[in-house]
């Protein structure tokens, strides 16, 4: 029997874990390298998942791969990749070297830094929070409270923060924040039935199956109000409540609103190290700084460098179920590549 081929996976989020588990079952040796002390990626921080409010822990429990051919390395951030004699060498800061016959990138997402959008007041005004902050509060089983310690009577949820915005250099749509906004509006309304919730959107991009049903539920059962207009700026009142300026574009009138809290649906960006990973090989980033596919339609999981593949949201923002699909299709591409090389 020939020696088992070795595949290195960079990133131990759900994409990396699922691809790793498929590939070991196919008979490969797999090493997953994760920069944090824990695998699971962003899912570790979320409270419940759209569109069915299932728990991230359930997803994670199903995909924790256990296989003698699978090695997990924690606390290691891969900084560069080199191709040498048909194999790949990986390096971290401490000169860890790892060889692999094929490489799978699953570096995932990073969340837009909301303080860059200064006019929205994140980091300046104490009652402005982000969608990630809300997930953490919710996950900890806490009630949403203002900084003064009261349950908010009115919360405004702001769409497209750091997405679709030339001013921050992100022209693209982050795709999952609209539905996250609907999910969180419902969560707030369940948590604080007395609280009025407003979503300020420009387009509601509820593309997935069941997403529109959730929108309907938000309106019908929870009286969430959707206002078509993008937030222009926020200012703080003396009592630390907030004033919003937007246009109600369906009325064609400027609108001022008072709110006790503002929740910013921050956009999703590619992981920061990706740029370094593109040095010394043919990997490329696309115009949004995600990994560029060899072909948008047919080879979404193949990179511009032969032998390097991509899985999950390092290709573009995606939901959990799409990420898992992407991981499985990436595993097929890796397998195809290694079997063809064999012949």
């Amino acid at each position, binding site marked *: 029997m020939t020696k088992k081929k070795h595949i290195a996976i960079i990133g131990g989020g759900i994409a990396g874990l699922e691809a790793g588990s498929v590939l070991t079952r196919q008979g490969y040796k797999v090493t997953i390298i994760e920069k944090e002390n824990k695998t699971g990626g962003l899912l570790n921080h979320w409270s419940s998942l759209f569109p069915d409010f299932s728990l991230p822990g359930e997803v994670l429990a199903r995909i924790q791969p256990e296989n003698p051919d699978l090695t997990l390395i924690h606390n290691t951030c891969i900084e560069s990749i080199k191709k040498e004699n048909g194999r790949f060498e990986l390096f971290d800061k401490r000169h860890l070297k790892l060889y692999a016959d094929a490489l799978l990138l699953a570096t995932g997402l990073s969340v837009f830094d909301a303080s860059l959008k200064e006019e929205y007041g994140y980091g300046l005004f104490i009652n402005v929070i982000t969608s990630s902050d809300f997930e953490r509060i919710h996950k900890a089983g806490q009630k949403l409270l203002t900084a003064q310690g009261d349950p908010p009577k009115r919360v405004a949820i702001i769409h497209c923060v750091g997405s679709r*915005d*030339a*001013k921050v250099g992100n022209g693209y749509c982050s795709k999952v924040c609209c539905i996250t906004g609907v999910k969180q509006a419902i969560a707030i309304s369940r948590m604080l039935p007395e609280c009025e919730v407003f979503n300020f959107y420009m387009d509601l991009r509820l593309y997935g199956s069941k997403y529109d049903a959730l929108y309907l539920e938000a309106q019908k059962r929870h009286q969430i109000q959707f206002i078509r207009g*993008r937030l222009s*700026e926020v200012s703080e009142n003396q009592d630390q409540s907030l004033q919003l300026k937007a*246009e109600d*574009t369906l009325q064609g009138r*400027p609108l001022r609103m008072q709110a006790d809290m503002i929740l910013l649906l921050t956009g999703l960006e590619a992981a920061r190290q990706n740029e370094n990973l593109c040095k010394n090989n043919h990997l490329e980033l696309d115009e949004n700084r995600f990994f560029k596919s060899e072909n948008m339609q047919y080879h979404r999981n193949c990179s511009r460098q032969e032998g390097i593949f991509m899985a999950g949201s390092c290709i573009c923002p995606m939901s959990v179920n799409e990420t898992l699909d992407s991981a499985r299709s990436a595993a097929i591409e890796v397998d195809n590549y290694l079997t063809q090389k064999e012949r």
Partner: protein
Amino acid sequence: MKMVVQQLADDVRLKEGMNACMNCGICTAVCPAAEYFEYDPRSIVVAVQSGNEEKIQQLLTSDTIWMCGQCMSCKTRCPRSNCPGIIINVLRKVSQATGAFVQSRLGRQQYLIMKTIGANLLRYGYCIHPSAVDIQNHPEQGPVWEWVYSNREEVYERLGANLDREGPGAMRKIATNDLLELAVIFEQSGGTVLWQSIETHSKNKAIELGLVDSQGNPCMDLYTNYLLNEDPEF
């Protein structure tokens, strides 16, 4: 006559101001003019973007385009890097050039602005100069200004300015050479042509309104008076 759409496109500023609008409303929300008037920069951008002759023609003859205060707050915020303020500038120019401006009350006031701020600029090198804000023509300034105006030499001296004199300092006299340069810039950049256009179209409007002297020539004193007392329609 060129289509207005083409006339707008001929102004290089349109390229800078107009990328593509996605109707987000951020410009209107931040716009100080929208707070006071029936004014919506977003819909102006959308009308220009539509390329529809009729809609644009309507803008050129409307009060709306004269409500913008040119503060450019919209420029810093637009997520598509449009600048409604610049687009409005281009609309204003085409309105002045085609004479469409005389069809709206705020547009007609171009004549007053030209005769005051425009004339000041060429004469003094300042948009507004204390000596130009005389008492007869500016009753709105009230009794305090009347006193300041009458004692302006001493008042400006007390304030450390250098009113109308050679040398450095606030409100100093602008050197004749500099004023000549300014006049050349005005001429070369198309200012003179617009000036004449505003003058001609305003005179025609005066005739249309019957504000004429005994020979049937437009009487611009009457016209000025008419403009100052015209009722706001909004």
